[in-house]
């Protein structure tokens, strides 16, 4: 098991390095000079050169890259061109908002997807199945920003149950945190949940048709036991993978939803960095997203080998 873990971690590190190189190269290939942008209207050649030198932008690219990646390993992602604050700090500040939203969204998604997908699979072409299909098709098709706006109009505007936007840190006010979380989490959760519902349905349907389910029924097991241990237990496997991918997506910042709800997450941070050509922040954010993605994939793989004895290390 530990050999497998090491091998997978090694692979992930190589991929991460590749991502780092790609991000770094891309930043320096796109047109637009960040130093000019940082100086704005106060441009003069001396200040320009000074800032270039301070930011290390006058060094050859490989040197710049090695310097950046070297300190990135120690957790130092450089300093924002824009604000002068350490990138690591900017990211850490945004982390609680993003993690809260991602966790709450995936919870909403699973709470919708698992029961609805299972029921649909158990009674194909029934009312539940047809309704589930329509709802999840709508959920997949409706743009998140529009869904968010509709939810705000109804629950914040008309009913006034939840705030229309903004983030309240958990440490400040747990109730306020929860209330601020409901609408954004519902928005992303409904979309993710729609995808997962379709997936759960097909996964359970496939598991139901397996020969071993017939064996289980022929044993005289109660229907509940057949469903729990021979259908859902097996349908869970592919669902774990998709849930992992969804969670990684949510953790990489859901930009549109963050804009609609003025949610100070990583998505907004990255968007702002793009607009400002704030290389260090953008590089740091993208590297973090890649890291989160790889880490979640690793976790999913490990979970998989725990859940499915055929894929043991």
């Amino acid at each position, binding site marked *: 098991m530990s050999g497998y873990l090491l091998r997978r971690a090694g692979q992930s590190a190589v991929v991460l390095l590749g991502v780092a190189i790609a991000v770094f190269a891309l930043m320096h290939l796109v047109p637009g000079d960040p130093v000019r942008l940082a100086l704005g209207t106060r441009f003069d050649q001396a200040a320009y050169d000074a800032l270039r030198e301070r930011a290390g932008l006058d060094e050859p690219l490989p040197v710049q890259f090695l310097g950046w990646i070297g300190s990135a390993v120690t957790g130092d992602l450089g300093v924002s061109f824009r604000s002068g604050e350490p990138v690591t700090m900017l990211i850490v500040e945004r982390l609680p908002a993003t993690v809260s939203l991602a966790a709450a969204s995936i919870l909403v998604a699973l709470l919708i997807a698992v029961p609805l997908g299972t029921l649909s699979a158990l009674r194909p072409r029934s009312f539940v199945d047809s309704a589930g299909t329509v709802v999840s098709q709508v959920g997949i098709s409706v743009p998140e920003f529009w869904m968010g706006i509709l939810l705000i109009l109804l629950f914040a505007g008309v009913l006034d149950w939840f705030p229309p936007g903004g983030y309240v840190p958990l440490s400040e006010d747990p109730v306020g945190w929860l209330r601020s979380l409901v609408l954004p989490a519902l928005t992303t959760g409904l979309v993710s949940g729609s995808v997962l519902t379709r997936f759960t349905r097909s996964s359970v349907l496939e598991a139901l048709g397996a020969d071993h389910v*017939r*064996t289980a029924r022929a044993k005289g097991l109660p229907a509940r036991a057949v469903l729990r241990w*021979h259908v859902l237990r*097996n349908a869970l496997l592919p669902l774990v993978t998709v849930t992992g991918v969804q969670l990684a997506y949510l953790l990489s910042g859901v930009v549109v939803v963050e804009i609609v709800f003025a949610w100070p997450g990583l998505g907004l941070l990255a968007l702002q960095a793009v607009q400002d050509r704030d290389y260090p922040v953008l590089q740091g954010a993208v590297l973090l997203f890649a890291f989160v993605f790889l880490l979640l994939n690793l976790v999913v793989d490990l979970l998989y080998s725990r859940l499915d004895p055929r894929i043991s290390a």
Partner: protein
Amino acid sequence: MSAQTPQPAPQPAREGARQPVLSVRDLRVRMGTPRGVAEIVNGLDYDVHPGETVAVVGESGSGKSVSVMALMGLLPRTATVTGTAEFEGRDLVGMSDAQLRTVRGNGISMVFQDPMTSLNPVLTVGRQITEGLLAHGDLPKRAATERAAELLGEVGFPDPRGALDRYPHQLSGGMRQRVMIAIALAGRPRLLIADEATTALDVTVQAQILELVARLQAEHGTGVIWITHDLGVVAGIADRVLVMYGGRCVEDGVVDDVFDAPAHPYTRGLLGALPARLGPELDAEEPPELVTIPGTPPLPTDLPPGCVFWPRCPVRSDPRCEREQPPLLEVSRPQVGGRPAGLPHRAATWCSEGRP
């Protein structure tokens, strides 16, 4: 009893005048499909006595698997089952699912064709045996585990206790089928249904499994329904054989009677399609040509109006064949001291004499 009435015989082959463990009468299965109503099983009558092996043979699509799945209530909801199937005096047809559940894996067990897919890949062998035991009796968990190990020993695992913690993928096909048999035996069934249970196995393993089932059957007096399309298996293990075609029994009787003097053109075709393994043909310069039955079985949504075999029949010696389904009639009956004894040999055909 008139020889002209299609009636099942009252006496078992071996066991004297004991009651049959299973008695099937006019069993029919219909299923709604997008292409119309499929008539998959169209009136089956047979008995299985304790300790007896009844082989059900036929091509794929002849309804043999569906007919036993119907007994177990394992067909999808779209299927309608009519007729009666008395198991130890209780009619299985029309039993509620809860009632059937007490019979499945307890009174009647099944072993399926493909041991690769018939076991749950993510649960241990031990767990898959004990869950059946726990579902049927108020056995404590420890005792169930003990019993599971005992069963694995019985079906020939050299290290039954160690095998409890194995997963199916760690076992060979033959060993997996032994696990299936252990699961089937867990409830001490009076009837065991083997649905192509050796088809997916190679020949040596097949022989071991057949031997194992025969031994267990002799020990426990279990009635066995063995579904297969392998006539070699039928000759080797069965007391009686029931030939199915288009959802009907076209011929049945004691294996030797049927194999020695097949009455129905279909049975003759099946036996004729067996490659000759013995005899002078093997010494000949050219091996004998493989004989096949031309055509394909009828679709259950589109059965012929007359004899189900008519479209493929090489004989067609009676004009009624095209329009009427011939009834299952007695062809011969073993005689003991000048009196009929044992089971009759029956066939649903008017073409017995017109052998091509």
